[in-house]
């Protein structure tokens, strides 16, 4: 929203990115962390989908991510094609403390590879890394309490009750190696992340930015009426380098946490 007024439109490359994954794995939290560097303990589930934007600078190139955060519950599945159509990138999120969520992630990957844009860049993100890190234990007592509360209430939910011991690795249900192997085999970018601590979040979007065939997007959209695509003056060579969150991240805050 603020971008359209800022006049930077013609410098940035618009990238449509979609987040997919089982309910409550932390998709919205990942986006919230990326877009406004925040974490909310109890985020309302996404109904249908939410839309957010965030700019990234990759050397001299500015990428403007248009992020579609989708709802995770199975029955919203049929709405997903509406959101991943024309997407150039996808982040498929699972929860490393819940084995089934990786299965769901795999089926999303399969669907994307068959149904979505053929050049789509897919990243696999195993979220909630903080829950299995010993370092999180000391701080985690207070800050991760919300997820433990949840689990405590959820006595009826199988597989969610964490051991009362302080052994955090016991919460892990998806070994890193297993997911990494799958990602390699399926040709995905792979990260373990924590929306809570922020670990690994920016990396997802940086790596995606590097891998995205920007020239393709430019070529495809050049000359169309779409803002953000028309008449990019940036030169052709794609450059390696870090992505800096735009300064106006704070400005877009109000745009994201709603």
């Amino acid at each position, binding site marked *: *929203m603020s971008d*359209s007024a800022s006049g930077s439109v013609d410098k940035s490359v618009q990238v449509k990115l979609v987040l997919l994954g089982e*309910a*409550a794995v932390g998709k919205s939290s990942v986006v919230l962390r990326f877009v406004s560097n925040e974490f909310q*303990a*109890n*985020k*309302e*589930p*996404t*109904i*249908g*989908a*939410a*839309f957010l*934007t965030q700019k990234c600078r990759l050397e001299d190139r500015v990428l403007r991510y*248009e992020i579609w955060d989708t*709802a*995770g*519950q*199975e*029955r*919203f*599945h*049929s*709405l997903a*094609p*509406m*959101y991943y159509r024309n997407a150039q990138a996808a982040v498929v999120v699972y929860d490393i403390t*819940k*084995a*089934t969520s990786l299965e769901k992630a795999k*089926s999303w990957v*399969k*669907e994307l590879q*068959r*149904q979505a844009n053929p050049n789509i860049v897919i990243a696999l993100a195993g979220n909630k890394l903080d829950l299995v890190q010993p370092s999180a234990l000391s701080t985690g007592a207070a800050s991760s309490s*919300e997820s433990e*509360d*949840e689990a405590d*209430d*959820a006595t*009826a*939910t*199988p*597989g*969610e009750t964490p051991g009362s011991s302080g052994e955090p690795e016991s919460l892990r*249900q998806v070994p890193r190696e297993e997911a990494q192997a799958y990602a390699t085999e399926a040709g995905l970018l792979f990260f373990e992340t924590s929306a809570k601590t922020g670990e690994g979040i920016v990396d997802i979007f940086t790596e995606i930015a590097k891998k995205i065939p920007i020239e393709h997007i430019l070529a495809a959209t050049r000359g169309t*009426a*779409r*803002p953000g695509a028309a008449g990019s003056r940036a030169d052709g060579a794609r450059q390696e380098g870090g992505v800096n969150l735009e300064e106006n991240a704070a400005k877009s805050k*109000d*745009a994201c946490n*709603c």
Partner: protein
Amino acid sequence: MSTISTALRNFKEPTKEQLTQIFFSLPSVGSLDGTEKTLDQHVEKMDINAVLSFGVQGVEDSYAGKLHIIAPYLAFTSLDKKSVRFTIPLSTIRRVERLNARAGIYALSLSTWHGMKIIVQLTSLRPTADQFCALLRDALKIELQRGQMKLVKGFVKTCYSEALVSETSTVADNEREDGSLISEEKENAAPRESTYHGGLGLRFKFPGDPKKLREASKIKLWATYLRAHGRNLTLLRYPQCTRLVQVGLPNRLRGEMWETLSGSMYLRFSNPGFYEDLLKKNEGRTSTSTEDIEKDLHRSLPEYAGYQSEEGISALRRVLQAYSFKNPELGYCQAMNILAAAILIYMSEEQAFWLLEVLCDRLLPGYYAPSMHGTLLDQRVFESLVQRCLPIIHDHFQVVDVQLSVASLPWFLSLFVYQQYANDICISDSRLLLLHGTQGVIPSRTRSVCSSIIYEPSPSFHSWPAILKINGEKLLQIQDDGGFLNLMRDYFASLGDSAHPNSTDPRARAITRFQELLLVSFREFSVITDDMILSERRRFRSEIINSIESFSKRSAIRNLKTLGRFTKEQAGLIYDALYMAMCILPPPGPVNPPPTLLTPHDGTEEKPETRIELSTFQYFLSEIATWARNEKIVMNGFQQRIDREIAEHEFIDRLFFFWDTSCRGALSFQDLVSGLDGVMFNDLMENIEWFFNLHDKNKDGFLTKDEVLTLSESFLFIFRYEVGDAYLGAVSRFMTNAFEYGDALLPTAEDADPNSERAHDGQGPEPTSPHFIESNQPYLNLATFRMVVLADEVLESFFETDLSGSFRLEPVPDAELPVSPSGLLGDLWSTIATDSNKKMFNMFTDEIGKTIGKHQVINRPSIGRYTKLEEPKARESLLTPSMRKSSSKASLTGSSTAASTATLAPSSSSTLTVDTKGQPAKDLPQLPSSESLSPMVQAVNARLMERTPFAIDDAKDDEDESDDEIDANDNDDRVMDEVDAFLEAHDSGLTDADKEVANDLLHAEPLK
């Protein structure tokens, strides 16, 4: 893994009667499985023209309308269907009197339990009025007998309105300004007995600033109205009621008014204790729904204090779980948590449960269903309404390729409660737009919060067009989905702002954007009527269903773990056959998850998956395998047709269990695909092995003697309609050879394997003798079986190509063969439309055909390799001498009689049952026991005799049964009639003379 649902196919448009019930917010017939059904069988219904006058003169005008008895309710609506209405349980009526009025006038005075008088003048003809009164009397009597009358007093005590009207001061001394209870000070004192239901707000405060909400004055206004016009069960809705709802509801009353206006109160009233029982009955039960609910409990209005405490969370859990137990098919859908959380602030659990029921089932039909078809359908309807009402915006969106639903869908789903934009919802009835101009802020939320608007049939149909219209100019600048969403978000965030900030008129400046929205919804979009929405829904339903079905087909195919050697298209054909079978023989309801004990707790439990049972499988297979259906070609001189039925045979059951690799007694789509993959691509040797394995029950690599017999029967079943003797001969030879080789290879005591030796030792006598064959003794191995099969040319060709070829994925052509239009009855035929007609026509022509001797029935062969009758060989030569010996009973004359009946009941002769279990063969060591053999051989003989020599071409039929639903798209443009009708004065529909009569009635004395 996927679930396949045929529920959408079975949708039925509501009948007129059902629409009336819906209009009066009455519980739908049989909505509670079984509990009330018996009464509904003979629900008395009648309506009559009437004029309603209020018991106290001058308070309200009189209105003409229709009075309905829909036992056990009495309902009234004014002619315009919106000004005045009520729905009152008969049990609240304590007295009915015929009034002594002017001649020719028939009037009744009805008194409710709290003494309110309603006067209705029945304006229909006298006999109709008499009949109506008689019906009313009977219905009241029944209510009295059912003891309903006694329940009323207890029930109304649970309603806040009763407390409100009896209180002298408008705000009780233990209430805060916002209506919540003050209890902290007297923590130890016994809590004041409040019998009325209320929500979490009583304890955790109601959202919003009570001053701004003007709670005190609202309470006063409402108390006055409810005192005079009835309340809860007996509320009469006059225009004043609608206006008051627009002013807003006091926090304490809100929950109850939602209940009353939505009709969920009738459900609570007629099902006392249901909620508690439901929870008790299902205690500890878990399901996918309960798991999903757990995930979201802490994610529902988390800012509200009530949901930061265990009290609120567990109330929310119970309500959502109870709903999912009540309606397992729908279960739980995200968005319901937010809805339930919002209403629980204002309502007790029981109230919220019933309101949720009404919301999910009636107000938002199909919105939360697993396919979300209701949501998708209403999005489509919404788009079409925008196209109609706001063509410029619609066209612009088309040009820039923006989908309206990306923004509107979340709000349709959550009734505006979503994402903090709203904290205040209100359920309305169909015609009234009920809304609150109230602004509130959920504590700790910094955003302004608007109220939401609920209409029926769907709450969002008026407000969304209004939102688009208000933002029209900006919308035309939008270039993509993102821009659209941003604009909408900004708009929602600014709803609390002034709509005309630059106006010089302070009053105009005071109008918020929210109020502006309400105004525009009212003024300009009340043209969108229920009927319009219903007819639009009808228009798009099949389109939506088709797209949902093709989506679920695609994802079912994608979700297959393996396609085997099938292409996606072929898998699609398998899916189609499965789907068709499920439509006709639906599998049992949603499979309840296995008991918790069996659910692995390591997080690897399975997602629910659609599985079919044997009967559905039989239908499925009959669509695919030629021998799994009986096809009779009937010719009667006028027409030639194929009567098709599902074959039943042990062989098919065997296949079912053979494919059920996970031993669940039911097959999934994947099982079917893998199963078919295991046979359709086989070569000769693989097919022989497949067939062998199919009959090798314990999978030890050997067939027992019994299994050899069963296998022979399977042959006979598959070949049952083949022309000529070739197959029967082959089966007969097969049996002979199989038994010969089998016996020859029987282990003697010396080389028998130790296991069987021990078994024999136990029984003792003559271990060397091969006579004693236990029924489970290995008898024939694959190599021998293969040898026996390959020795026979006919069987070899069967396994080489015919077996695999008998599975055909392409849909079976329709069973009708075209009739030449020039035929005698051709014209008649072409006018036949329905299935039952066809059946009658078929029977009719059959009869004629029989009389004129042209009726002929032929069973279509499954393999059809030999279409010409081969010269019958000498029948004796088919049987070995020993077999002939034991089959002497099967005389030729005997079997020829069988032949004459065989065409009538073909399947009866093909289901052979052989009972050999535990009957060791004694006198015929080289053959199975005579008891078991003789029926078999008899049958073979009989079959040889019954062959109807006839050659049939594969009759194909391309007649397309296009009985597609005729689009009942009667686009009655009532749009203009209803323009702004709401804001118009409420016309009572009465002339002055009528009014005078009505006024007279107010003073009339009861008839003695």
